[in-house]
């Protein structure tokens, strides 16, 4: 059991998974922190992008990365529309966070069942030509598809970081998050900025979904399972903090992987949920709050 190879293997695959958690988490965190929207449908959009990748591959032979050319703009646009027509109506409600949770929960149900209706509950797996290939570090096996998923996630996070820190709109988003009133006084159009940020968040969910699909099989209800991890990552990393959430994602992935090596399968989830509860009760602002 204390086999070093097993431990290393679990840690590394966990870390790769953590990359996906990080990307999904960052988008989720952006939505929550900046727009005060807890987007329960975040993971569901990820699954949608995963399906687009799957069908692109199965029907037309597209590489899943190519499908992103379709899903990213599609999801970004969906995010814009959703924010403009649904979420903005809700930001006037008494408790934005609660209202947004219920709204996006309804949305998630619609999305999940639309996909169920269209594509059935069968588990799908993305198998490309290189899916069976693997990298060998000594006795440790790293599947190429997992590495690609990880790479995609890192690219996604890099993209978000670049947007937030090196583009005009991105800086406006950060200003809005830190001080909405001040930002408004500066002439920043809050609604438009939030719309774009939300579109970006949804698009990143799409990238995350495809990245996840490289590693695991999926079906419409899977988003519920991912959602728990999203909450864990965001709360540990601190809502709204890009770097904090990214690091938290990697950490959670690592912990998940390692616990797979030490704990019986059924207890992994108990451990993770227990961890989330403990963190919430001790330090709800997250471990990395700036």
């Amino acid at each position, binding site marked *: 059991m204390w086999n070093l190879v097993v431990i290393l293997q679990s840690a590394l695959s966990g870390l790769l998974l953590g990359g996906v958690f990080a990307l999904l988490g960052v988008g989720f965190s952006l939505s929550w922190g900046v727009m005060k929207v807890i987007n329960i449908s975040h993971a569901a959009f990820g699954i949608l992008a995963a399906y687009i990748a799957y069908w692109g591959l199965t029907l037309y032979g597209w590489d899943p990365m190519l499908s992103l050319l379709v899903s990213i703009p599609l999801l970004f646009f969906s995010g814009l529309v959703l924010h403009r027509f649904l979420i903005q109506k809700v930001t006037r409600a008494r408790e934005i966070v609660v209202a947004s949770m219920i709204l996006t929960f309804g949305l998630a149900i*619609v999305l999940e069942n639309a996909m169920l209706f269209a594509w059935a509950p069968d588990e799908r797996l993305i198998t490309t030509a290189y899916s069976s290939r693997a990298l060998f570090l000594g006795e440790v096996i790293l599947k190429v598809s997992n590495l690609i998923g990880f790479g995609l996630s890192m690219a996604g996070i890099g993209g978000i970081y670049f947007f937030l820190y090196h583009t005009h709109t991105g800086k406006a988003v950060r200003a809005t998050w830190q001080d909405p009133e001040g930002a408004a006084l500066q002439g920043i159009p809050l609604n438009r900025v939030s719309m774009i940020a939300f579109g970006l968040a949804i698009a990143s969910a799409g990238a995350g979904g495809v990245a996840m699909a490289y590693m695991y099989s999926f079906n419409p209800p899977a988003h519920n399972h991912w959602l728990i991890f999203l909450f864990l990552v965001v709360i540990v990393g601190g809502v709204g903090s890009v770097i904090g959430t990214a690091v938290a994602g990697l950490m959670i992935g690592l912990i998940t992987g390692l616990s797979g090596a030490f704990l019986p399968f059924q207890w992994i989830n108990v451990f993770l*949920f227990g961890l989330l509860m403990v963190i919430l009760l001790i330090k709800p602002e997250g471990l990395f709050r700036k």
Partner: protein
Amino acid sequence: MAKTTKLSLIGLVFLLALFPLFQPPIHSLSFLFLVFLYIILAESWNLIGGFGGYLSFGHVAFFGIGTYTSALLFQKLGLSPFVGAFPAGMMAAAVAAVIGYPCLRLRGPYFAVVTLCFAFIMDLIVKNWWFLGGSEGIHLKLVEMEIRLSRSIFYEIYLGLAAVTVIFVRWVEHSKMGLGLSAIREDEEVAQTLCIPTARLKLQAFVLSAFFPGVAGGLYAYYISYVHPDVVFDISVSILIVLMALFGGGTSWAGPLVGAALLSIINELLSTYIKPEIARMIYGAMFVAVILFMPDGIVAFVKRKRGYA
């Protein structure tokens, strides 16, 4: 409450009580039984959720705790679930007291997530602990009874329990506790400046809100006779409770009642006549619609339309 409303409600309860005598299809008895169950769950949830403003997303755990407590009391001690329902409620209340104390220090979404975690953990612990039957569940060998009779009996019991819960919640709403909880919900810091012992009051509301689901769970063990975590710790029930209470409107006793009844009926109609996935899509769309157009719930919406400010 207006005289007419009071009379019509009493009349309704009376009619419902007589309903089984007309030999209706058994399915309708089971359906109404579930409606009563959701009324009990949503109404008692409202004490902490709607009145207090602390949305517990893990409330089904108290129902499950109640079910398991009474099932175990029967299995190990031979205690009839009718008697065991009360200790079941107390057990749920006790657990609520223990986890409520640290959890209620969290605000808004964090409280929601931590209570959700709690429900998940309870589900997983029960599934994996041999003492509680594990994923096999617990089989209760009970008295043989003709199914219509047994369904009718449980129907009446749950109707009674639902009525008691509604009356109790209404009483709290108009009591000192109710005013204190409203203040906490509106602005907890201001409530503190009004000498309201917020931590204590929240905990009281949380414990009370767990008791009724616990009792209902205790009786439920007898009803289904096979207790399994997937059924009694079902997270979607937890979320549904919240939605039902908010759908009807959280700030009054009538909201969860209306929400639970309406949503159950709509759900039943949809799933009978339409494909399940489409039905659920409509369900989801309804939540979006209600949040957009009736954010304070249906009861408040109707009241406003009728001219009550």
